[in-house]
């Protein structure tokens, strides 16, 4: 039962006291449960143990672009392999902050800066062509949707989890998307929509993929999306946060690898 608790007439409440107490008790139980499910994490506990990777990861997670770049330069100057610096240091830092983000212990400003530090660090690591990837994913926002923050965050987190991310940008129409799918054979296409008025573009894209006989899942998220909307097409899926998205992607990549 949902109560609209605006005003009440004297002597005639929408709910009687008994009902209110019941609801409060139920709410408190739920709250305790959800707190138990999500124990407090610490950044320290999420970082790699050995140096210099720990310090690199820490500065990526902390969003200190200059320090991260300096540490990466030093590590490579000392003969560390660029690829190892990426996988064991930079990406671990991005991963750590995204775990905190999923647990609401970090917020968008932290993620944005960590992504900046990650990208600045990556540029110092030389040719990353040999970097092992779990697969390619395409990411875009629905046609007409210009909100790119959520998309950028997801792109950074997915990349930190070992995927090659091709960012097609904002307001991408289904034809352009189809071309990119043909060119890159991704394991999944990711889409974000924050406006209810733009999300119908995903239905179009999902239909176009089926029509063209391309078997690639369209995983969507963002404020305007929920499971019910995504459930309208067989090749469409909803991910509620970056953590869930990565789990879904890993399952798809594993299935493909078999």
């Amino acid at each position, binding site marked *: 039962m949902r109560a609209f608790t*605006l005003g009440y007439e004297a002597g005639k409440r929408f709910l009687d006291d008994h009902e209110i107490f019941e609801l409060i008790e139920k709410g408190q139980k739920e709250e305790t449960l959800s707190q138990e499910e999500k124990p407090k994490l610490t950044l320290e506990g999420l970082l790699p143990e050995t140096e210099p990777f720990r310090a690199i990861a820490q500065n990526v997670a902390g969003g200190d672009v200059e320090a991260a770049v300096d540490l990466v330069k030093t590590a490579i100057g000392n003969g560390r392999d660029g690829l190892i610096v990426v996988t064991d240091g930079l990406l671990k830092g991005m991963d750590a902050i995204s775990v905190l983000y999923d647990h609401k212990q970090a*917020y968008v400003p932290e993620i944005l800066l960590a992504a900046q530090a990650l990208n600045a660090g990556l540029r110092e690591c030389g040719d990353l062509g040999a970097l092992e990837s779990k697969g390619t994913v395409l990411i875009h926002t629905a046609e007409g949707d210009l909100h790119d*923050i959520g998309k950028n965050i997801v792109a950074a987190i997915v990349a930190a989890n070992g995927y090659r991310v091709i960012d097609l940008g904002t307001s991408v129409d289904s034809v352009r998307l189809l071309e990119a799918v043909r060119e890159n054979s991704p394991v999944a296409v990711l889409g974000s929509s924050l406006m209810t008025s*733009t999300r119908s573009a995903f239905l179009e894209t999902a239909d176009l993929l089926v029509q063209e006989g391309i078997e690639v899942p369209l995983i969507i998220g963002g404020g305007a999306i929920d499971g019910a*909307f995504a459930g309208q097409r067989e090749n469409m899926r909803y991910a509620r946060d970056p953590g869930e998205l990565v789990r879904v992607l890993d399952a798809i990549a594993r299935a493909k690898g078999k």
Partner: protein
Amino acid sequence: MNAKKRIFSALNGGRVDRIPAWLPVVPVTVSMMEISKAPWSGSHSNAEQMAKLAAMPWELAGLPTATVPFCLSLEAEALGCQLDWGTVNRTPSVKRPAASKPDEFDVPENLLERGRILTALKAIEILAEHLGEEIVINAKVTGPFTIAGHVFGVGNLLSWIKTNPEFVHDAMSRTVEVTKELAKAFLAHGADIVSVSDPTSSGDLLSGDYYEEFVFPHHKDVAASIKAPSTLHICGYTKELLPHIRHTGFDGFSFEEKVDVLTAKKILGDDISLIGNISPVATMLQGTPEKVTTEAF
């Protein structure tokens, strides 16, 4: 108790004979544009058409309110941002920020004469004249954090919270004046209620602490400046902001279903009336009339 009185009473935490059906955001649809012969494109820039379309939810569906403008980019356009004008089922939105640093931006002296602001003020006048007795004439103004995101870019604004907090304070001290000036002008032209929408300050983007430091003082400032009933709308997950929102001074807070109503009531107490909380998508758009009734009562 007529519709208007019911809404005012509810906003002030007083007695009502039933829960008022009201919302501080924009409820117009494509079929309303067709019926009113006020096309979306014209309704953003022509006062007569804006007023006609805004009256539709009342004339067609009995929703006792008319809200203008229809987008969150009225202020941004007047401040020099480039817009994407959207399509028939999409609102205009900001394509390009106007500045990259706070000191590159000043609130123009002739703010009210820029962009479509005079159009929106005129539309409020028309609505107040024709429907002001029966229904609530609601002026929607954009909140200072959302305007700052439009003017400087949301990415910049959020990054500054960590790298350059002074920039955020500086930016907000400028954009808050825009919200206040618009609110005042709308009231002077006949609006009954000012509804401030500040979706960028959502708990999906900011922690409660960030909201408290960077946004709360300005929301308080805006609420204190509005000499009429006022509401605040923030999209998404707002639970961590609620302890602060309680003390902003707005009369009503409109929020989404990501926070359940009991949790919200427990945190907000009787300091601010609760509005909304019914999913506009799962319930209103994809649901049934019965589902709407169940959730509302």
